[in-house]
């Protein structure tokens, strides 16, 4: 058996490329190219448009694959497929795995990120539609020396999370809420976070966290 070498636990996937990951990426890129050349696109039942057959390969006027994304205040050059969602780009191209995929259908909010000050389901956003807008993820909240954002601290103090899988999304929705409405009522907070599902049912503790954060900020 080929040695699969090491895995990259924990934080090493975050900002800088750990050794080995770049090799993984380049093989992915090389492969993508190959498929586009030989790809067979199945017949479509598109209903909005009428006309000719699919083109072969990248067509004139289609999006450039290599784009710049403004993520957590940094410009990141990244190779993005036309059919790639922002959640996929963040998680698998930029290593920002704090953004979670739980439904991949824009129904649960685990993938919530902030784009130009508004919450988005990153699983239901094509990365190419982001353009020059700023993207903030859970990884962008900590201070330069790893100090927690007051919202993060509040979520700890109130024991907000249970299993934690929806927590990054809950926190990103809280970030936007408190930017737009620094002193929300509990009911306003509840509405602002209502697009974030929690199967553990930790809503009450999350709201306690939000209200505590609102006091501190």
């Amino acid at each position: 058996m080929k040695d699969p070498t090491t895995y990259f636990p924990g934080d090493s996937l975050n900002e800088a490329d750990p050794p080995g990951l770049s090799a993984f990426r380049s093989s992915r890129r090389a492969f993508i190219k190959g498929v586009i050349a030989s790809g067979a696109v199945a017949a479509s039942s598109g209903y909005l448009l009428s006309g000719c057959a699919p083109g072969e390969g990248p067509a004139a006027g289609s999006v450039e694959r290599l784009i710049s994304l403004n993520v957590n205040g940094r410009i990141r050059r990244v190779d993005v497929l036309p059919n790639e969602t922002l959640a996929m780009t963040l998680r698998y191209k930029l290593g920002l795995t704090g953004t979670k995929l739980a439904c991949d259908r824009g129904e649960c909010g685990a993938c919530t990120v902030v784009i130009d000050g508004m919450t988005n389901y990153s699983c239901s956003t094509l990365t190419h539609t982001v353009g020059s807008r700023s993207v903030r993820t859970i990884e962008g909240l900590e201070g330069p020396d790893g100090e927690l954002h007051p919202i993060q601290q509040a979520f700890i103090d109130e024991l907000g999370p249970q299993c934690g899988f929806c927590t990054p999304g809950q926190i990103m929705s809280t970030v936007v809420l408190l930017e737009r409405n620094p002193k929300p009522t509990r009911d306003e907070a509840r509405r602002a976070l209502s697009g974030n599902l929690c199967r553990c049912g930790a809503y009450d503790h999350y709201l306690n966290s939000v209200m505590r954060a609102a006091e501190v900020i």
Partner: protein
Amino acid sequence: MAYSLIGKDFTPPDIRGKVTGKAKYAEDFSAAGMVYCKMLLSPMPHAQVSNIDVSDAMSMDGVVGVLTADDVPAMDGAAQAILTNTPRYVGAPILAVAAIDETTAADALEKIRYDIEPLDFVLDPLQSLYPGGTNAQAAGNVASMGIPLQEIKWTARDFASADPDQFPMTGKAVSEWSYGDLEKSFSEAAVVYDESFVTASNSHHSMEPRSAMSYWENGKCFLFGSSQSQSFMIPGLAAYIGIEPRDLVYIAEYCGGGFGSKGAAYPIMALPAHMSKKIGRPVMMRISRAEEYYLGSNRAGFQGRVKLGVASSGKVTAVDLYIVQSSGPHNGYPDFNSAAGAVSICYQPNAMQYRGIPILTNTPPGGAQRGPGQNQIAMVMEPLLDKAARELGIDRLEIRRINAPNNDTIFGGRQRAVTSAYQTEALNKGALAFNWERTKKRSGERNGSKVIGVGVGQAYHSAGAAGFDGLVRIAPDGRLHIHSGIGNLGTYSYAATSRVVAEVLQCKWENCVIERGDTRKHLPWNFGQFGSNTSFTMSRSNHAAAMDARQKLLEIAAAEFGGSVDEYDIGEETVFSKADATKRLSYAQAAQRAIDMGGKYAGHEIPDDLNPMTSASAKAIAGSGLIGVAKDNYALDATPPALAAGFMVIELDTETGRFEILDYNGVIDCGTVIHPLGLASQVKGGAVMGIGLATTERIVYDPQNGLAANVGFNQAKPPSYLDVPSTLGTDAVNIADPQNPMGIRGMGEPVMGCAASALICAISDALGGHYFNRTPIVPDMIINAIAERKQSHKPLQVYTF
């Protein structure tokens, strides 16, 4: 008893990762050269697959391998295989393709040619029991844990003896028990109710889909999975993979929700291990939401009938209960038996008869879901008890007090005793906080189209086990390492029970390190993290190991300074002479002495009653400090119960069938409270899940083709922020249990059932005591009931809107 840590809030060490996004769930891991696998799932509810041709798929650029049923272990009886050529539900995995990216894997699946022959399928257990009815598996229609696969049909006479809308009570059961004189006890009842009922199945839909990643290195299989449990997963997973447990390295630092569906080894987790072995590369299996629906388990649905007799005093005299369970096509989980035990303990009937039978159905595999059985039956029984209270003119809280279990309780077919039980206290505490006397008067209060409903509900689950191991180490730097193999399902109970060790050894929490989440951390054999057991079970085993470490500290001090161990004590992370405080060793010094002394002190000699997993872990860390290791041999001669009471008031809109929950208060009897904030979070979270169970969540299949109508969240309908109160009340009885060294019992399951049944009772109350015979109660049913229109579904119909 005053504790310095137990009963106090703390910051669990894993929570920072959750709020920063650094917590690594299975799919967040990666490996160089990793490829991705995707599964071909059955489009039919029961079929035979043949002539699989993967050549076109394999010839695609980037496709690196295919795994079929031939590559994985075949399973005995009704058990589920990892892959199968005889899919028995829509969504059953047939094969998997690995490719260099997920899109290519998905494209490759579309290039695979195979023949698939539809077989007869069955969704409704009663149809399977009917003479000539379809079996979900060729070899039979009945199986469960401990019940071998077999065929059982009821007779036409059985069915004919009951009204078509009633559940037939004479068919053969596979599980039955009784106690007391049933006939006499029913004759002593002032009221007797006889109700057929249906409780719907619902999906677990944990937020984290059960993704897994695996690779092999130096003959060992590395597996990153999503599980509630840690050590408990190992034997089963190793078997699925086909290796010895010692050759499995299992990493599960975080689990994004399981609710019973990830408590023990499950077959699909082994798929990437098999694929990786076959193709020689690391394999990531990212599970989609739809796949999580199909593979992620669901709560068993019930069709049943209950006869309940209540004396004019309010005392439950007799219960006759029959449950047919829809289990999915494999062994499922014996909810039906648990339901019967719950009825027996919660209502203490003088006589009870129980019969049950699990029926295989061509629906996704069932499994344990939070309060499996107990929580379904709570929603059946509690409103029925209200019916009796109304008819007998007894307060609804009072009738529950009259029948509440206490320290003298015995229950179930084996007439087991309980370690302790304080349900009356739970009811009283809840009633006080809820202001029952005043609130109940609001029942039926009208405001335009809206009407107030008030409900109280109860639920039960057993709350712990014995016989598992604890392992702790005091390192030469003085830090206390607590090795926990329990797992991390998100309740923080792994941490709360670790504090038992710190409490016993009087160690500062900041100086403790919890070793967990990875086989390589040398973990002891612990029970799985499920079934409300962790707080009880794990605090016992941790206590045993801590006491062993304590004893060794005293012995080391006695060896150092002379005299007997009785002359020494511990405190402030030192062991010292009670007579001469200058004779004192810090834990760091004692740990170094332990290393120097070797033998049992350093873990070279260990008790011989330990599980081999614990022995191996203890040996691995031997010589690195003072080792405390022991099996929990504390006495346990009764069932530790977790009992809960929930109080709810709702405002139901008679014009829309919708309601708003105005107030909820949940109280748990779980012995000593170990972690107040964690407890509150569980009581509240349980209530949220209970609200979904009672009113929004159900699984529906099209009987024409077996397709599921509730695959995604928007159709499965778990409650959102706006479907539950934004503030929920909680409390605990907080009376120590005598059979746990610190009085602790578990609590996770009944806090869901008590809320679910309180809501069912509140809806019923708002409608003047209408008994629905079915859960969940959806707006359709409420609107139809108010309009006095027939319900859309037939009375015993299952998997239906």
